[in-house]
């Protein structure tokens, strides 16, 4: 049954405004891209090398983009065709948007995402809640200019230690991202994914020293190998 707010949520006006917002983000990305490309050439990179970066990043992004389609199928019946498209194309992430929409729906007095059928007025509130929910998070980027200057002067003033600050920060970040998966030893498909993808990457790094062309694809291929290992492990456990 058509929900009563869908006349608003799936209207051409909604499509136009959501499309416009996405277009603006794409323009932002294009301007950043052009600025970085110019600077890269000034720094001595060859066009051929930069194309490798573009190709590898684009190829890598295909697979992690696919689960977003599942999130779209979850959010579309709640947020409508176009607002879900906007939220998942830019700004949010598949996990954030589902979580935020669920929190918004329940705090507006409904049981869950699936059960929600609102009036158009409540849908208006929902759009505001989901949009504002990530507003301060995005605005925190305004602090980056001061923070970057501070970090750069810290790295310079800390002498030899300053040179290893980014390296230690990087390892701290990697450790935090991976910790919940590293301790989840009972989750066989997850462990299989980690072990196989890591082993593939190490092997491809070794082979890549002789066959440089492989380096462009080693990350994507390792990720796919890990994902395949998770499927195999799940099938074997059945």
């Amino acid at each position, binding site marked *: 049954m058509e929900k009563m707010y869908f006349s608003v949520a799936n209207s051409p006006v909604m499509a136009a405004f959501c499309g416009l917002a996405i277009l603006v983000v794409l323009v932002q*990305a294009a301007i*950043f891209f052009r600025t970085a490309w110019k600077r890269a050439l000034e720094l001595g990179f060859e066009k051929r090398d930069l194309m490798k970066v573009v190709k590898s990043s684009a190829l890598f992004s295909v697979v992690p983009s696919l689960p977003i389609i599942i999130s779209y199928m979850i959010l579309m019946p709640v947020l409508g065709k176009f607002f879900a498209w906007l939220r998942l194309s830019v700004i949010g992430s598949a996990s954030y948007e589902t979580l935020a929409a669920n929190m918004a729906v329940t705090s507006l007095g409904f049981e869950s995402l699936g059960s929600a059928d609102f009036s158009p007025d409540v849908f208006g509130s929902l759009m505001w809640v989901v949009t504002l929910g990530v507003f301060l998070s995005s605005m925190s980027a305004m602090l980056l200019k001061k923070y970057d200057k501070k970090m750069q002067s810290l790295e310079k003033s800390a002498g030899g230690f300053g040179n290893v600050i980014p390296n230690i920060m*990087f390892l701290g970040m990697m450790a935090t991202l991976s910790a*919940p998966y590293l301790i989840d030893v009972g989750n066989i498909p997850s462990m299989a994914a980690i072990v196989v993808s890591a082993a593939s990457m190490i092997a491809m*790094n070794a082979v890549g020293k002789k066959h440089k062309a492989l380096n462009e694809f080693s*990350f994507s291929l390792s*990720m796919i190998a890990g994902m*395949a290992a998770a499927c195999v492990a799940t099938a074997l456990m059945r």
Partner: protein
Amino acid sequence: MKQENNKNENGRQQFDARIHRLGITSTLVVWCFFLLVPAAICVIFGLKIDLAATAKAAAPIMLIFAITGLCEKLSMAPIIGPGAVYLASSTGNIQNMKLPAALNAMKIMECEEGSEKGRVVAILAVAASSFVTTAIVFCGMLFLAPIMAPLLTNPVIAPAFDNLFPALVGPMVIPVVLKNLKVASLPVGLAIVIALVLGSTYSSVQSIVMVVVILISLGVYKAAYKKK
């Protein structure tokens, strides 16, 4: 030689200034358009918003994501550079896509974390990744979603996507940790202990944990460095 260094330093400063100007301006512009969507729809369709209920619902979500977002940006900026972070902040899907894409690009070009070359390459990677995601989600909206969803949720294929992040952890983290085992042991050990203590609440405070792990690691290594 000295002249060459000065030229490079000037170039770097100019680029940094331009990126910050661009990042701040474009973030504000992008947000005007994000806010325009609910604002315009409410005006055009004459929707009546209960401001108090909306503010009450939005406040806790805002607060949670503000802390997470801030910690995420402060941790990532010194590694992939502020330019990539500005862009990732608008384009979204940071941890599962933009960060690995940036790190992968830096690895391919053999750039060190935080170096100027690394920062430049990371912007290219995040931008390229954003174009691809937008195109795929656009296709999903137009026609791909009903075709792909049954395929992606198929019991044989679904574990692949359920374990996407562990499959990213393997190539992104393990080789780096093994290569820097001595330095990595503290942050990895610390994060593992915190993950064990926090259990299922870990994911909701992960960005805060990241800052804590980084600060403790920096503190310990700085003390060890001074001793040397």
